[in-house]
């Protein structure tokens, strides 16, 4: 009980503060939209079947926007020294982790809620299908689960903003592949039952790395 109330407190504090200023959220969103536009210019997305390129464009936009948000997650706490305040409290370190993961998830979902309809309008491809959203959801969870613990690591390094993508992207390859593959399959008109490989992989990734992060997060925060 105490555990979940601490998770909720940390989650709610992050969400409350962020939705008040929206500094990071607007940054993430504008970045995601710009990424989509740049892809449009770079690859001329008015190809015959936009479905073939949309999954890749969508996921690259989501990944890089997420990276911005994840980076700020611990940098803000670190720069104000406020992480010490949480560490002083009689709270499990894994509760801090989980609260942060949930906060990051909400920010990433908030960006996607706006980004996906914009993509529908710009490219006339319906990405708002439930099965596509399932892949978006699972992939986003994977990014939040691994990205949160790596951002806690990266914040204590030199060149910390650069460090997070370098650490995160090679570990995230399975999520990128499975999510893009699954999204593409569904946009091609195949049923969800044909994307079970990608789906299972995403679920396995999320579960395995959530477990490892739980086991190792103590070591990241301890000094």
């Amino acid at each position, binding site marked *: 009980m*105490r555990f979940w*109330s*601490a998770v*909720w*407190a*940390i989650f*709610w*504090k992050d969400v*409350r*503060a*962020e939705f*008040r*200023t929206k500094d990071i959220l607007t940054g993430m969103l504008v970045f995601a939209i710009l990424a989509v536009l740049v892809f449009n210019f770079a690859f001329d997305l008015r190809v015959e079947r936009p479905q073939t390129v949309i999954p890749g464009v969508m996921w690259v936009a989501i990944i890089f926007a997420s990276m911005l948000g994840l980076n700020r997650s611990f940098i803000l706490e670190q720069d*104000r*020294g*406020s992480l*010490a*305040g*949480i*560490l*002083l*409290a*009689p*709270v499990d370190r894994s509760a801090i982790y989980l609260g942060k993961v949930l906060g990051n998830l909400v920010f990433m979902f908030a960006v996607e809620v706006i980004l996906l309809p914009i993509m529908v309008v710009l490219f006339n491809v319906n990405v708002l299908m439930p099965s596509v959203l399932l892949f978006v959801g699972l992939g986003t969870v994977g990014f939040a689960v691994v990205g949160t613990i790596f951002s806690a690591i990266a914040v204590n390094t030199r060149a910390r903003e650069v460090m997070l993508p370098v650490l995160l992207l090679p570990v995230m390859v399975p999520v990128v592949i499975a999510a893009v593959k699954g999204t593409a399959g569904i946009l091609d008109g195949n049923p969800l039952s044909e994307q079970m490989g990608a789906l299972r992989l995403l679920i396995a990734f999320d579960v395995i790395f959530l477990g490892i992060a739980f086991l190792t997060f103590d070591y990241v925060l*301890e*000094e």
Partner: protein
Amino acid sequence: MIHVRGLVKRFGYTVVLKGISLDIEAGESVVLLGPNGAGKTTLLRILATLLKPSAGRVTVAGEDIVRHPQAVRHLLGYVSHHPLLYPDLTARENLRFYAQLYGLPEPDARIDELLERVGLARRGDDLVRTFSRGMVQRLTIARALLHNPPILLLDEPDTGLDPQAANMLARLLQDVAVEGRTILLTTHNLSRGVDFARRVVVLAGGRIVTDRPTEGLEVQDLSRLYLDAVAQEAA
């Protein structure tokens, strides 16, 4: 209340605390002095369970700080020159957040009481980012007192405050000390330290070089004592 035995702290290859032993009884107020880099903040952060000792044993109210940090955390209030507050939340939201972390059952009455006490009752619903440095520091004290801890660790709480705000802070701390809390304070302000504490401990080069009561000690004495001790360590 606080027992430190042979405490050593290394950062990488640098030894910051070189075997500190210190006993502080319940209700004692102690001022910790020393030049920058003497290890004052490190010592306080170890007591606050923010750092792990490299060697030695520290117990707070009988609990080992490495083996039972959660039990110790309930007993400690910690104030540093970092406010540990969120500027984009209101004063009340900040306190409510910490109340939740400490698992306080009915926080609202306690929060009102503390806001009143630190003179911020009317600003409770304003964002902390609109506060002056002095107000932030008073709110920090309220945060540290939230769970009514028997021990207060104060790491240069008056740094960066103008004289008026510093006076207000000193009065507030005096009140708190009267309530029978055990207090360990670091400061660069020698006269305030002598006024406030009954015992003075001087730390230099990672060792305790002086430990004596402040009774009958004038600021000039203390300042000489301090400089001598530091010079001795350097030699």
